[in-house]
């Protein structure tokens, strides 16, 4: 991922703002008091109310100002060996949508993927979804771009597409091309899955540092898809819960703990090759179109935050297995210290309890299995009985869900102390094809070779 243009901004806005926090263009994100250019250029964000301040590290450095992380306004290259939005340093905001294909015509589906790729390429650069989309169609046309991101910077937008197992059911002649690794997830102990939060023929993950930019991307792609696809379910995420680059500080989830300290990172290509990217030897030749791609597991995890908040600090830390303030593994001093599962607490019990989340989820207890987590916090109104419907929208990329997510979730579902406070009520898995070069479309090798 590179920062392609410092002046990347939606078409026709008067002045590039990325280079100067004082110029005229004020992004919505800054108005909302969240991470803005101020943080990106190292200025102190005012009044302590901004997201940037909230995410500063202990020594006062803005969380997202590290070298190697693009400025928050920058455009992320759409094309590349892998799709953007996987190892791209995790942006702050998410709009995720799962869709069903409603046409029976394969050609319509292919045409939509071409149209989508072109629109996604444009929007990622900070442009309107179509040339002159705001007003260029004249007074009698419905504008081709919905307009709400006009004048906003590219905001690190990435748009990532995936294909669900149901797409390969025979409607589009793809049954023989289904990768062996693309299977619906098995049922796990405690699952409370809802049909209208699960599954889907296709998915679109839009991530950006401005929520309006992410929503604009999904809205315009959905609109381009009317007649071909329809929305099955949708999820907003308001704050990232993972770092995917060593240059990013570790964010916190809705339990108030740092999440994803030991995540796979952009700077670890060997680890990514081993755990994230599908390799040639992984699949039969008919599914070779997935080489360079990755499988996405999505789980909507409702957190019973009201119950959690009444739990003592010690119990919270024992359940997670980390210290709440610094994020250090229990028994250690610093966030990135190695986890020592043999170490005893003064009372002779394991410093990291047997049911601690970090123990059960750690690769050393899962025969080396790792995943790239890329989840987001959410609150979706209320549950109707006086609580917030809050939680973690878990997203993770991996090379083979059956060998990575499934054993991990089996271990967690049976023992994890967190289970008392969470329930999984949505689930889906998607095959995200490899990246594109200019002129190619998403999934081209699946549909044309």
């Amino acid at each position, binding site marked *: 991922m590179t920062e392609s*243009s410092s*002046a*990347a*901004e*939606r*078409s*026709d*806005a008067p002045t590039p703002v990325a280079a100067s926090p004082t110029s005229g263009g004020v992004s919505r994100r800054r108005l909302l008091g969240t991470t803005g250019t101020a943080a990106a250029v190292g200025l102190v964000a005012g009044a302590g109310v901004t997201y940037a301040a909230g995410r500063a590290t202990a020594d006062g450095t803005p969380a997202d100002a590290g070298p190697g992380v693009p400025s928050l306004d920058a455009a992320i290259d759409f094309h590349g060996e892998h799709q953007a939005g996987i190892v791209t340093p995790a942006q702050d905001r998410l709009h995720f949508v799962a869709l069903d294909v*409603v046409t029976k015509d394969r050609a319509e589906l292919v045409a939509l993927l071409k149209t989508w790729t*072109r629109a996604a390429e*444009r929007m990622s*650069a*900070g*442009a309107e979804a179509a*040339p*002159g989309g705001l*007003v*260029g*169609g*004249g*007074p*009698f*046309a*419905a504008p081709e771009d919905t307009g709400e991101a006009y004048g906003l910077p590219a905001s690190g937008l990435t748009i990532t597409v995936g294909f669900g197992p149901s797409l390969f059911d025979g409607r589009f002649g793809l049954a023989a091309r289904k990768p062996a690794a693309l299977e619906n997830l098995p049922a796990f102990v405690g699952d409370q899955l809802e049909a209208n939060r699960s599954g889907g023929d296709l998915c679109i993950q839009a991530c950006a540092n401005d929520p309006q930019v992410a929503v604009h991307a999904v809205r315009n792609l959905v*609109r381009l898809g*009317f*007649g*071909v696809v*329809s929305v099955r379910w949708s999820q907003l995420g308001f704050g990232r819960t993972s770092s995917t680059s060593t240059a990013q500080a570790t964010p916190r989830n809705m339990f108030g703990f740092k999440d994803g300290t030991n995540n796979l990172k952009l700077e670890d290509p060997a680890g990514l090759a081993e755990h994230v990217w599908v390799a040639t030897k992984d699949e039969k030749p008919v599914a070779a179109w997935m080489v360079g791609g990755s499988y996405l597991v999505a789980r909507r995890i409702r957190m019973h935050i009201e119950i959690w908040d009444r739990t003592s600090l010690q119990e919270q830390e024992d359940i997670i297995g980390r210290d709440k303030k610094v994020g250090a593994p229990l028994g250690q001093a610093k966030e990135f210290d190695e986890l020592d599962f043999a170490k005893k607490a003064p009372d002779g019990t394991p410093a990291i309890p047997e049911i601690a989340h970090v123990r059960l989820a750690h690769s050393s207890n899962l025969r080396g299995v790792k995943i790239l987590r890329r989840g987001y916090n959410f609150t979706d109104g209320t549950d109707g009985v006086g609580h917030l419907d809050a939680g973690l929208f878990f997203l993770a990329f991996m090379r083979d869900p059956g060998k990575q997510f499934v054993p991990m979730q089996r271990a967690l579902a049976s023992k994890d102390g967190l289970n008392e406070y969470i329930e999984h009520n949505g689930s889906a898995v998607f095959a995200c094809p490899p990246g594109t070069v*200019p*002129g190619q479309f998403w999934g081209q090798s699946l549909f044309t070779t």
Partner: protein
Amino acid sequence: MSRTARRAAPLALATIAALALVGCTDKPDTPSSSTKAGGSGAITVNATDTACELSASTAQAGTVTFDISNAGTKINEFYVYAAGDRIVSEVENITPGLKRQLKVEITEPGTFTTACKPGMVGDGIRSDFTVTGTAAKGSADQKVAKAISDYRAFVATESDKLLAGTEEFVTAVKAGDVAKAKTLYPTARLPWETIEPVAESFGDLDPRIDGREDVIEDGMKFTGYHRLEKDLWVTGLQADSNAIADQLLVDVKEIATKSKSVEPTALTIANGAKALLDEVATGKITGEEERYSHTDLWDFRGNLQGSQSALETLRPVVTERNPALQKTLDARFGELNKLLESHRVNGSFVSYTKLTAADIKALTVSLDALGEEVSKVPAVVESK
């Protein structure tokens, strides 16, 4: 009737100039910009990351050809704008090293703006472009005139049907024949639903005939079809039901007469076709319109039929200017008609209350697909 008053249609916006995209094509990468047959020579556009150089800034009306080469490092675009940044024509995705050709038909003189847009963002590198003289126009004007007369004939026919059906319905109500009146109710008002955008243009007549109990404005009585619907299905005929029925007939007669005098344009026909689908989306598919009788699918039928008939009159115009759109419209109308008809049993639509959530979703998905295409028609018929 619609839930909110419609904004008045814009008064005849001056057509900016007679313009049409003839086409843009990929062109083999030949460096020469040889003269095109049938017009003045092609204008070369040398686009880089920082410049947009045209070999000429004026042209004679007719087909103007631009040969654009991207000598820069960024993806480029080339636009021809009329006033207000309205795109006359554009060519996008000109990758570095590529040469593309754009042909624009301009039949009226005027000042235009050309722009290269390296990197796809920003206002682009602009300059003025002047067209002089005039050129012959296409044959679309006669087609538009024909569409208008066809649409007027359709409205007249539907108005007559509305009047005949309403007479029969009113007679049944006044005879106290509740069963017969209930049978006649959905079909009597069906023609109304086909020409609703026209009927709505006559001020108070629309709310008097078709007002719903919750959207009657202050000072107005709840009258018309929906008042009688409530009487027939919920409260039983009331002391003033006959008077309501009499007034309904008077109002329908008036609207039938007035409807025949409307003077539509291609734009109002196209916008009306879209408005009818909006009616379905906001009132019928939600079960709001016929809350007592639950005959909403009949209204759906009427709105859909009215939209399709309106666009049928415009078919020659749309086919000439955007044949792909006409093809998609036909497909989408076909799909929704088939789906809607699947809810008909022994000739009658099932009650709205019999629809499952999945039925309503399927209808909505199909309606969205159609609505998105129908929304493209107004600009197509008004593009010249």
